[in-house]
């Protein structure tokens, strides 16, 4: 006898699109980690009941359209300056949950100064840092975080340490600063890593609300278009090549 089909009823529903994600179809390429991270942010803010208190600061880069996708308040910042804008918003509105959402080109290149000083001041904000080792939006050029030997549009022979320097490990550097209470490195390439990343994000947001200092959540992410791979290949490449350089786990706190 054929088994009865599982009823699609509300009481049987165990997972669906988070309430705070809008119905807009995201502009991200197929399989992009940004979409999954957006989803986690929407879930955590909803679970914390901070829908009306959350203010995100979105950057220049692929994350720029976050205001279209997550139904909370957003402010656009000049390239790299999200941590400075976040500082002002949090100091003027201490009851708000303030976080920035920045890529590696934004945070680790043009915005390094703002990021380091916001961390050193111990602002009570959360910095969400998407590290995909490449400039995704502008066509796959080398970023400060590009791995040694990695081929990009501007390093067609692979990144060479003598000429281009070394991959920038932002999280490890910021963990040295006294103003930073929590530094963690997560990824969203497997179901288990998504679950761990969500817990880390919640902890970071709670730290911000408890005025413990700055929390820094790095997501090691894929850019299948920039890396010239299918999304599934990109997830495998991340596990094989990115994670040895950027190991997952809590770095501080």
């Amino acid at each position: 006898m054929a088994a009865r089909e599982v009823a699609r009823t509300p009481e049987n529903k165990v997972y669906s699109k988070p309430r705070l994600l809008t119905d807009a179809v995201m502009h991200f390429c197929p399989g992009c980690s940004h979409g999954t991270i957006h989803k986690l942010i929407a879930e955590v803010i909803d679970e914390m009941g901070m829908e009306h208190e959350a203010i995100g600061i979105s950057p220049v880069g692929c994350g720029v359209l976050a205001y279209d996708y997550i139904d909370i308040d957003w402010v656009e910042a000049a390239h790299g300056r999200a941590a400075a804008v976040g500082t002002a918003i949090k100091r003027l509105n201490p009851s708000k949950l303030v976080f920035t959402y920045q890529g590696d080109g934004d945070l680790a290149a043009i915005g390094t100064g703002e990021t380091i000083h916001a961390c050193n001041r111990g602002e009570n904000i959360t910095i969400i840092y998407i590290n995909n080792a490449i400039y995704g939006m502008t066509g796959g050029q080398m970023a400060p975080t590009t791995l040694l030997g990695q081929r990009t549009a501007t390093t067609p022979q692979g990144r060479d340490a003598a000429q281009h320097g070394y991959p920038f490990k932002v999280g490890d550097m910021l963990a040295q600063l006294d103003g930073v209470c929590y530094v963690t490195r997560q990824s969203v390439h497997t179901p288990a890593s998504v679950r761990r990343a969500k817990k880390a994000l919640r902890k970071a947001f709670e730290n911000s609300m408890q005025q413990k200092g700055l929390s820094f959540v790095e997501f090691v992410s894929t850019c299948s278009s920039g890396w010239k791979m299918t999304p599934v290949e990109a997830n495998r490449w991340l596990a094989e090549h990115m994670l040895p350089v950027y190991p997952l786990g809590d770095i501080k706190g």
Partner: protein
Amino acid sequence: MAKIRGIVTIEQERCKGCGVCVEACPSQVLELAFEVNGKGYHYAKMANPDACTGCTSCALVCPDSCITVYRQKDSDD
């Protein structure tokens, strides 16, 4: 013995056919369709629905949040 069964609904038009869910499913329930949606993507579909346990792995990794998971516990009667 009670058996836990699941079923997923995939929003065909939102799906970009990245295939991350197909890879994440521990029971090989999903596959990419031969047909394409309005944007030309081979969307994900349930190819082997009887094997689904409703574990939510596919939905967790879906970047476009187009998977809804339902789970039901069946008794033997």
